[in-house]
């Protein structure tokens, strides 16, 4: 293969009907991650319904998110919408003394009527200081796609981080706690014990940034967050994303090099987990090897995952579609992805489905709205959303990650055998 991989592959840019979530969906995992935060969407009944539908069965008595639903009176005059918002926030915070960070989340309706949530956040921050910090960001569908909600949220937090000139590592991206602990363990074994993580679990957990901060990203969709950190003086450690044995090792090695940790130390620390990851992946790869895969755009995880599936599981990528491709963040993964597949950005869902039907891939990675219809057409699918809601990063999850893709194929094989009897 060429050393360039897909770096020079021209990107097919499509502009048509998109079948993707909006950024509000990120709240579903962000509110679990930040344990003293409340996410208040300022939006419509649609926004509330989306959150509820995306959250699925996870109905808690009073979750740490909600929607301030705009009604006609709010649309009539804007001054009153700010007052109304103050009322809702005051009620909420008086009932929930556990809340230390409040995120005002903009939606399409709030943005179209130009409801100034930044102003509201400033005012409410002053009013509720020091107990509660109020931050605003946009999760709207006219500005953000799915995981870009997390990007907007973290980017909005960056200006509030205290300044520090200490030489330090900052890891950006929300990871499930168990995975984050594994990562911190590996870094500590390499001698990097003092690692800050954005987002932190609690408002009081100290995360700082400054000119001697080096940032490693664990999620590929954090372009705005990286830009905000860079503006604060931080430098980016470019690396493939830590999916699979290869990605995890490359990521750790890049971080190690940035801090002068020798390759020998990295090898020693990662030897055992690498072997475990390879063994675990090999089992799933038996099913995946030689099979073709087609990614519809969803979370921006598509390119790193295609790299994992093609290089570690022996799959062939037909098309790798992403809602948006951040060339800087994606460069290391694109370079590793062997040239061949169509790389597409954006979507025209009907045209893209025509391509899926023509190619008849062995596995199609797509959103929940498309999975059953494609299955009914005889195609095997993997719901993309599971890749975001499941622990999939780093060594100990590499086998699970491969398993997410092999299970639908195994299942289809089992059911066919039964049907043939």
């Amino acid at each position, binding site marked *: 293969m060429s050393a360039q991989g897909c770096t020079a592959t021209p990107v097919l840019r499509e502009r048509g*009907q998109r*079948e993707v979530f909006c950024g509000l969906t990120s709240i579903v995992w962000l509110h679990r991650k930040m344990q003293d935060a409340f996410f208040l969407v300022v939006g419509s009944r649609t926004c509330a319904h989306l959150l509820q*539908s995306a959250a699925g069965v996870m109905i808690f008595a009073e979750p740490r998110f909600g929607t*301030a639903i705009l*009604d006609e009176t709010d649309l009539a005059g804007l001054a009153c919408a700010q007052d109304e918002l103050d009322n*809702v926030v005051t009620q909420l915070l008086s009932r929930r003394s556990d809340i230390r960070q409040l995120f005002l989340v903009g939606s399409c309706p709030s943005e179209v009527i130009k409801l100034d949530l930044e102003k509201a956040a400033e005012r409410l921050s002053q009013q509720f200081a020091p107990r509660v910090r109020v931050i605003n960001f946009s999760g709207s569908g006219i500005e953000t796609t799915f995981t870009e909600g997390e990007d907007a949220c973290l980017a909005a937090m960056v200006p509030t981080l205290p300044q520090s000139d200490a030489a330090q590592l900052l890891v950006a991206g929300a990871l499930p706690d168990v995975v984050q602990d594994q990562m911190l363990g590996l870094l500590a074994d390499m001698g990097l014990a003092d690692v800050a993580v954005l987002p932190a679990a609690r408002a009081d957990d100290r995360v700082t940034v400054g000119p001697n901060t080096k940032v490693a990203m664990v999620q590929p969709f954090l372009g705005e967050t990286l830009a905000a950190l860079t503006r604060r003086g931080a430098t980016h450690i470019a690396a493939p994303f830590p999916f699979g044995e290869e990605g995890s090792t490359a990521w750790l090695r890049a971080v190690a090099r940035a801090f002068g940790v020798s390759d020998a130390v990295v090898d020693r620390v990662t030897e055992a987990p690498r072997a475990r990851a390879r063994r675990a992946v090999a089992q799933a790869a038996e099913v995946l090897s030689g099979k073709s895969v087609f990614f519809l755009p969803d979370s921006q995880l598509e390119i790193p995952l295609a790299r994992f599936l093609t290089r570690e599981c022996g799959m062939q990528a037909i098309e790798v579609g992403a809602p948006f491709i951040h060339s800087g963040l994606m460069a290391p993964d694109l370079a590793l992805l062997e040239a061949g597949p169509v790389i597409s950005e954006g979507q025209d869902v009907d045209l893209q489905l025509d391509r899926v039907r023509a190619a008849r891939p062995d596995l199609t990675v797509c959103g*929940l709205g498309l999975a*059953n219809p494609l299955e009914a057409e005889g195609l095997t699918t993997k719901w993309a959303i599971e890749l975001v809601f499941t622990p999939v990063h780093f060594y100990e999850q590499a086998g699970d990650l491969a398993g997410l893709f092999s299970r639908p194929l195994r299942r289809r094989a089992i059911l066919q055998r039964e049907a043939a009897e």
Partner: protein
Amino acid sequence: MKLAVWTYEGPPHVGAMRVATAMKGLHYVLHAPQGDTYADLLFTMIERRNHRPPVSYTTFQARDLGSDTANLFKTACRDAYDRFRPEAIIVGASCTAELIQDDPGGMAETMGLPVPVIPLELPSYQRKENFGADETFFQIVRSLARPVPRTERPSANLIGPTALGFRHRDDITEVTALLHEMGIDVNVTAPYGATPSDIARLGAAHVNVLMYPETGESACRWMARELDVPHTRTVPIGVGATRDFVAEIAGLLDVAPRLDDSRLRLPWYSASVDSTYLTGKRVFLFGDGTHVAAAARIARDEMGFEVVGLGCYNREQARMLRALARDFGVEALISDDYLEVERRIEDLAPELILGTQMERHIAKRLGIPCAVISAPVHVQDFPARYSPQMGIEGANVIFDTWVHPLVMGLEEHLLTMFREDFEFHDAAGASHHGGKAAPRPQVDPAPAPAESGPEARGGAVDIVWLPAAEKELKKVPFFVRGKARRNTEAFAAQQGVAEISVDTLYEAKAHYAR
């Protein structure tokens, strides 16, 4: 502006999608941002539909605002026609598009598409999903239905079933059979399974069966007025209602009332001795107005329960439900605030909740048995087996469904007799339910004061449970403990007693003995 945590209904355009997705040969062009496409998954995942909803979204973005959102809409409209070749198109705006005022209806009309284009005005900031479905279906009927000759044989339309409806699929089968027994044909079922050309011949029917007033009432009213097709008022859920329905249809069509009840089991099951334990069970009902009203009648008259509270989330049915509640001597709760419903349930401490998926979660948290009787729906509400709510089989299904969460007949007594038995403690639950029985905790944790008194649960009365009484209360089986606590507190309040002792507990028990 109102804070919503969980909602019973989606926005009105989701109601329009329920109509469009139920129909064939119809396409919906929806001016909406990309995130609104989440609604597709309701149909493909919850209802397991094997095709995409027939909806084209314009998915405009911020950069399109003020420049060419209107063109985006026109392109989407033309592409949808070219690709799907529908018999008719409905067009409308979601909440965001409503604000940018592109007027999809007006634009679509000027495009000269060779099929009927039906504009929808669904005020997203005032109304909700059921309204959206009702209004959409009404507009479709108004645009397409024409006066046509009546069928020779007596016939009926089944009106109201939609995609994502609570058991609509099976209710259609049941009601069709019910009518068939009386020699009545089904002319058209709509929106479920109907094409625009089917809508055109709605007027051929002699009567409309209004299955679900939530989604079909406006269309039925219009057809009564404009096409002279009368509609039924009785929703045939439950034995009594099914018999009334048969009588109503017979009267409207001048045919003999006939009902084959050879497979009807609810009345005998309910009368059989094993069901004695159902007597006076305190139930709380919540859901859409229609299903709650039907369930209330079944609960009282056919199951022998005591209805201690009822309510609905759709304001459109508030008046009907309030009248019904007066009949039952309770106060109706009309609210779409999940937390308010939860508070009401906590206050009433029922022994069984008949509600929606939302109440199922409340019930789980409060440890109260629960069965689902109404939308909003969950993937579990689309069972593979035939399980209607309407007609004879519907009544049988309802009996089974409502009884299932309860502890059964003799088992209830065994639990009472042997409540000190290590396998028969509270957490063990009913033997026919899955899940491993948790062993009885070895040490009884001291009752946390925060949990004990009524003040902790928001009550206004200042009554304290003495530790001994609290301990005695723990010996009451869990499925009646809520009632015991409540009765005792009510009794204490009535007697002006501030502290509940073991004696108070037993005096209350004697007082309420029936």
